């Protein structure tokens, strides 16, 4: 019986290992021809009558830019919302707010993408006076919408699990309610909030459909939120369906997948590390 449960719990380890092996197996021939150096180019031109180029820097930068922007946009709303729901809102407010915020997470990302294309992109264009709304900022706004429920939900749990005695002690020492919230409760819940932010980021990095529809997908090297970007996920989703098997392009896409996996792996590692140091402190 014990063995059975042990097996059940290790299945996911096996799956992760298999995925790693599979990615490297499919991508490996690329190392010999044209060589890994080709991945460090500055242009991604997978289909060309002139010269195909598989530089994934614009894709990495695109994913990075959108992720950082989305997280920066989502954090204030996410943490602010969590504090309000956990500390300030009455029971009835909480009962209305929480299900609606969680419902936001249940909207399929294609539907959000469609909304982004028809409503959000023209709005971004009008507000910032741009020539088009198909850019990194539109993508980041949509992704922030997706990350907010995760951040709110997990942060709120963390804030609520701070022992009541902390708050009572703080109030007894003469701190106001606001001081108690920001100086005692939130710092005590910080590890949970950081974990929430990391999970939100994880969702953002891996999201495909919504960014595919609103970021314009032009592989440009840029740090401007008003330029079009092409993310790693969008590249794989858009190109894998058509690519000839075993071709250099096919292998290059697997390398994009490997880099993406390393990205999320690092993100997980960092969040574990942060949680670990928080616990010790």
């Amino acid at each position, binding site marked *: 019986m014990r063995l059975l449960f042990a097996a059940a719990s290790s299945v996911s380890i096996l799956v992760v290992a298999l995925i790693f092996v*599979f990615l490297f197996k499919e991508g490996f021939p690329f190392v010999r021809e044209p060589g890994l150096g080709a991945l460090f180019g500055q*242009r991604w*031109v*997978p*289909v*060309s*009558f*002139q010269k195909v180029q598989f530089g994934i820097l614009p894709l990495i930068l695109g994913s990075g830019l959108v992720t950082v922007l989305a997280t920066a946009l989502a954090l204030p709303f996410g943490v602010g919302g969590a504090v309000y729901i956990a500390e300030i809102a009455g029971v009835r407010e909480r009962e209305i707010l929480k299900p609606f915020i969680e419902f936001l997470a249940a909207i399929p990302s*294609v*539907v959000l*993408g*469609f909304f982004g*294309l*028809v409503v959000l*992109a*023209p709005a971004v*264009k009008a507000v910032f006076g741009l*020539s*088009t*709304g*198909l850019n990194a900022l539109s993508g980041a706004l949509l992704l922030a919408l997706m990350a907010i429920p995760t951040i709110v939900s997990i942060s709120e749990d963390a804030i609520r699990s701070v022992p009541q005695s902390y708050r009572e002690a703080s109030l007894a020492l003469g701190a106001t309610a606001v001081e108690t919230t920001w100086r005692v409760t939130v710092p005590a819940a910080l590890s949970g909030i950081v974990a929430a932010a990391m999970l939100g980021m994880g969702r953002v990095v891996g999201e*495909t*459909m919504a960014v*595919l*529809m609103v970021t*314009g*997908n*032009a*592989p*440009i090297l840029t740090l401007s939120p008003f330029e*079009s970007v*092409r993310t790693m996920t969008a590249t*794989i*989703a*858009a*190109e*894998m*369906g*058509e*690519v*000839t*098997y075993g*071709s250099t392009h096919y292998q290059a896409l697997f390398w994009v997948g490997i880099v993406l996996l390393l990205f999320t792996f690092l993100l997980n590692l960092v969040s574990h590390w942060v949680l670990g140091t928080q616990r010790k402190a």
Partner: protein
Amino acid sequence: MIHEFSLKGISMIRTYAPLLFFTTLVLCSGCGPSQTGGQSAETKEGAYITIKGSDTLVHLVTAWAEAYMEAHPGVEISVTGGGSGTGIAALLNGTTDICAASREMSQDEKTQAAGKGLQVQEQTVARDAIVVVVHPDNPVNALTLEQLAKIFEGAYVKWSDVGGGEDDIIVLSRESSSGTYAFFQEHVLKKQDYSPKARLMPATSAIVQAVAQDANAIGYVGLGYAAEAKGTVKAVGVKVDASALAVQPSEATVRDASYSVARALYFYVPAQATEAVKAFVQFCQGETGQQIVEENGFVPVQ
């Protein structure tokens, strides 16, 4: 095995966006023979045909399949999109009976087919024109092939370069996986690369949406879609060179070959296909089939 698995997963994602807009991707009407009596006799008459490939063709093939199934109650036809490349890959792997393609098979793919001992026949089933579309408020009504090439290569960046306003041109293209992308690149860009700033849209409908929203955008779509989107976007006339007359894309101009950005659409069928498959291809190329071509905004094969 693993290859095939990943193919299905990814092409599902790819077909997901068009799916949302067009709703008809998989078509499995319940008109198979009733299984209650004489199954052995029924199965001889009944057949199941799968067609996979170009998103451009998905509407048309669905219409053919519907008409054919109505006339032949024993036959079931399933139609999926995903792109010409996906269809060809499926044909080579033996997971589809017919591949619908908006481009010719590449040399690579032909070599692969030969390697698998597969003799693939090319059947022209319809013609299509690629229409360059802009916002209805855009003052530009016609462009030469050279101007189009320069716009999509990124050499012209302002509308004033081609007789329009002072604004930047927003270039919209399909994804590199699309047959339309490849055709446009070969015949309009003369094999040059697209501008790196060209925005790559995941579906034809996304291009129509974006052009309808944006006064400075320019994009390209199939003739059938352009007819459907009339009013929300404007089709640009195309001149072969600066001295030539501008030709508006239409069925008549494609047929008399005066409109220059036109192409053939194909079915790829293995030589060893079943009789049922061959009969369906003949139906599509026949009189009723070509009438359906016309009804769907494409141009019949002469």
